[in-house]
């Protein structure tokens, strides 16, 4: 048998994570569904790792073989993506924190 394509392993991680997500999200109390949306918003901005790669395209590497100058474009859109994702990361986590701080138990 030939070697398994690494993409299959990534697919396995992804599918397992969908199952983890399924069970974890069902256990979230309905009272916290709004903070859930805010925090999932924040964590999906981990897409910033792609933006960081884009913003540093071509640094310390020989010019690309096709020489189409795509690096400059990549750095511009990468920087815009960093800004957008940062709005979400800071905004998402902080607004979640603000909401969660409001949930209080009865004073006895």
């Amino acid at each position, binding site marked *: 048998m030939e070697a398994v394509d690494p993409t299959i392993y990534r697919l396995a991680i992804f599918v397992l994570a*969908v199952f983890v997500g399924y069970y974890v999200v069902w256990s979230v109390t*309905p009272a916290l569904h709004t903070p859930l949306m805010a925090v999932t918003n924040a964590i999906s901005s981990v897409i910033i790792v792609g933006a960081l790669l884009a913003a540093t395209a071509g640094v310390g590497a020989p010019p690309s073989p096709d020489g189409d100058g795509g690096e400059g474009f990549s750095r511009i859109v990468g920087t815009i993506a960093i800004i957008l994702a940062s*709005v979400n990361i800071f905004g*998402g986590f902080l607004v979640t924190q603000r909401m969660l701080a409001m949930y209080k138990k009865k004073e006895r």
Partner: protein
Amino acid sequence: MSANLAALLYLASGILFILALRGLSSPETARQGNLFGMVGMAIAIVTTLFAVNLDGAGIALIVGGVAIGGGIGAIIARRIPMTAMPQLVAAFHSLVGMAAVLVAAAALYAPEAFHIANDVGDLKALSLFELSLGTAIGAITFSGSVIAFAKLNGNMSGAPILLPARHLINIAIGVFIAVMIAFLMASGGDAKTAFWLITIAAFILGVTLIIPIGGADMPVVVSMLNSYSGWAAAALGFTLENTALLVTGALVGSSGAILSYIMCKGMNRSFISVILGGFGEDGSASAAAGPQGNAKQGSAEDAAFVMKNAGKVIIVPGYGMAVAQAQHALKEMGDLLKAEGVDVAYAIHPVAGRMPGHMNVLLAEANVPYDEVFELEDINSDFSNADVAFVIGANDVTNPAAEDDPGSPIYGMPVLQVWKAGTVFFVKRSLGSGYAGVENPLFFRDNTMMLLGDAKKMTEEINKAMG
């Protein structure tokens, strides 16, 4: 940093994100969970910074980008009123969608930076497929969220906009996107025009998918777009071969899907029928029939007197409370009642408000302890023991027709059985029907008293009368 170490750190950050969601199972652990999420994000960012080659310009772009974006985000998070949370979440979704589009474009133009190019600078067909999906879903998320934002924020009417042959249009755009993806894959990444056509078509699809969905179905739309933003991130996680992104995408994708399911169940509607849109249109015929019978109207003094002498009062808030910002006055009313020895509880319907958990956040903002707030299944049997049900800004979620009138458009929807309480007070602006255009027969029953007026003003008057 070695690639293996980086991969392990991304895994750690993925696990911290799982723990962040796990924390939300109870308000006690939620704050710690949020902290886990922040740490996970920090690990992912720092790991990436060690893995890439940095030059002066790169550092400036990154620091500047994070400072600008982070500053804006922090200011928004601090200033946004809690009632504006649905539109804020929609706006945040649109940013994730746009970021996905931009990252996919960068990966296409500079594949070397993403380590996905072959020796001649071409991309694997599989990578092209992944980033096409990333940009398509990202673009749908972006434009769909912009529409959702405009509807929630009142920049656009919440009424459904029904294009002729809209299903056909959507299918045609979908087929076009699929053909363009195949074309881009066959070109080895050289057909950059195809990429932009995919993106533009998906932007259009996002608009045509969301405009036919009415304002009251927004909880489903917001959840659905939440799910899309996750799937877009996951698609790019495959391109970037990044575990943190894959795990996050899967978590967010399933989270949004589950919330959509819960919202649909709360309305007894199928997901498909919500997506196809147009709800609230066909109901207009029955609304035109006008109110039947006589509704009893009461004053704030009547309500104050009855509630003061009650043993148990259950408060049922709805979207009208959010619009009127009546949550603080409501909490004061609850306190006054408790001071009179009345047992006070709050009942929340799953689709009350404009997003999942909307009412809970507003009550929490007004300092209502969360253990006085109950979900539908937990409190529905208590209405028969309650002397008063105080319905403020809610309507359809209390409509008995959902249980006993098979002809009603909302028949089968789970409702709060407020009519089982001794007296029902309805705080409403008018006797009109709810969003579904459905008449509420409860308004005309003997034990119902209508308190017509603005939710906040009426509650304040009751508080004054009680004092």
